[in-house]
């Protein structure tokens, strides 16, 4: 009988193992439980000081918790910071900080701009190898009045002041340029060529995970052995980092 009970006791944590949650003890007089993850959702329940809550999940800056009595609700980060962990220390749910920006690796974003007078749209992903060197892949689509172009280019960026909030960079790269004339044009031919890219740009760390970016790029499209075309590309957009 005793062994069965013991086996049951051992099994319970195994069964619960799939849903093990972090537990914290409330330090504030009350912890407000909102119905949803946002300040606009009403607080309909409270958990009192000294009670333990389980942290079920997180959405942006809101945490879904469950109290010992089974009350569930969403708690804002500032209130979650006023709790104690099981080790008896204050829990630190820190915000995204400038340090995270400086230690970022992967960055994704999009930008709108003008490519030789036509509107352009760019998606880009960059990877920061170290403090000064960034690699970036750009995919641009240019929609013009007479033709549309697709550009893919791989770039290396040197950012000498990357530990500043405002960080300029130099850009060097190569890629491929493809131009298709509009269906309404007569006797127009497609262009497909290699391109060299040189440019400068600016990253401004805004807040949280956001970076505002402005770029100027100069494309030299090598159309054939004795013909090069040069295009200017201005871009502004925003990116976010992980």
């Amino acid at each position, binding site marked *: 009988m005793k062994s069965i009970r013991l086996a049951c006791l051992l099994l319970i944590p195994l069964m619960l193992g799939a849903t093990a949650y972090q537990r914290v003890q409330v330090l504030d007089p009350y912890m407000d439980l909102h119905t949803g993850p*946002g300040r606009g959702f009403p607080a309909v329940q409270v958990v009192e000081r000294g009670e333990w809550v389980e942290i079920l999940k997180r959405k942006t800056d809101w945490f879904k918790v469950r109290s010992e009595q089974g009350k569930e609700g969403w708690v804002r980060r500032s209130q979650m910071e006023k709790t104690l962990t099981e080790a008896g220390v204050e829990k630190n749910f820190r915000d995204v900080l400038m340090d995270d920006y400086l230690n970022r690796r992967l960055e994704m974003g999009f930008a709108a701009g003008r490519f030789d007078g036509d509107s352009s749209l760019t998606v880009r992903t960059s990877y920061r190898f170290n403090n000064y060197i960034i690699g970036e892949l750009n995919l641009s689509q240019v929609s013009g009045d007479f033709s*549309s172009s697709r550009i893919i280019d791989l770039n290396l960026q040197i950012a000498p002041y990357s530990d500043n909030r405002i960080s300029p960079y130099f850009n060097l790269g190569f890629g491929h340029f493809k131009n298709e004339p509009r269906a309404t044009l007569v006797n127009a031919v497609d262009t497909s060529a290699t391109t060299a890219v040189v440019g400068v740009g600016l990253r401004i760390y805004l807040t949280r995970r956001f970076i505002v970016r402005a770029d100027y790029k100069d494309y030299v499209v090598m159309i054939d052995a004795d013909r090069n075309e040069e295009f200017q590309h201005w871009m502004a957009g925003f990116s976010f980092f992980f």
Partner: protein
Amino acid sequence: MLNQGICKILTLVLVIGFFASGCSVLSSRDKQDEKQELPMEEAPGQVIAPDVERRDISVPKIDTENWEIGLYVGVLSVDDFGSRAIYGVRAAYHVSEDFFLEGAYARSTVEDTNFRDIGLPIFPNEEEDLNFYSFSLGYNFLPGEVFVGTKWAMTSSMYFIFGVGNTEFIGEDDLTYSLGFGLRVLPRDYLTLRIEAKDNIFESDLLGTNDYKHNLEFNIGFSVFF
């Protein structure tokens, strides 16, 4: 006499000092030899070997759900070229409780039946494929709850969405601006139902004159948070 005495004492001190220093040099050498001979584990003076197992405290990770990925289906009305079904996928990243960034890709068709009927075909075929993609910024507003019956309450929120993208049909790319609003309802914390109305605006000269075309889209979809 006195000087002789001092001399004796000084010599004695010197002799003792010499031997003492000699001894210390020798003894330190001996110790060094000893150290080399002894294995490290059996250092003298250590009675109990510490055999402490480090406790691995694993705090369960908090499951963050800031990504949303989903499918949608709807109706897209392309200015002059009929209304057809549109199918799309979208992925959103929720940056804060207020803002989210979204990428979407959708496919639909366009038809020039009306023009064909009066003998003026515009497309190579009556029905042509349409591809659309966009990158948008969304803003959540009017958070609240939706009540179904007496027992079920689901959190909900309205949102505005503004996007820049591209519409492509019969080989033409048009930069497209999207403006819209929608309602997002969450039956579960990870599941989202969405109803959205958008105006996709692009400039086109397919019918001779360059003009802004307003293409209304209405869609419903679901997505999953992870």
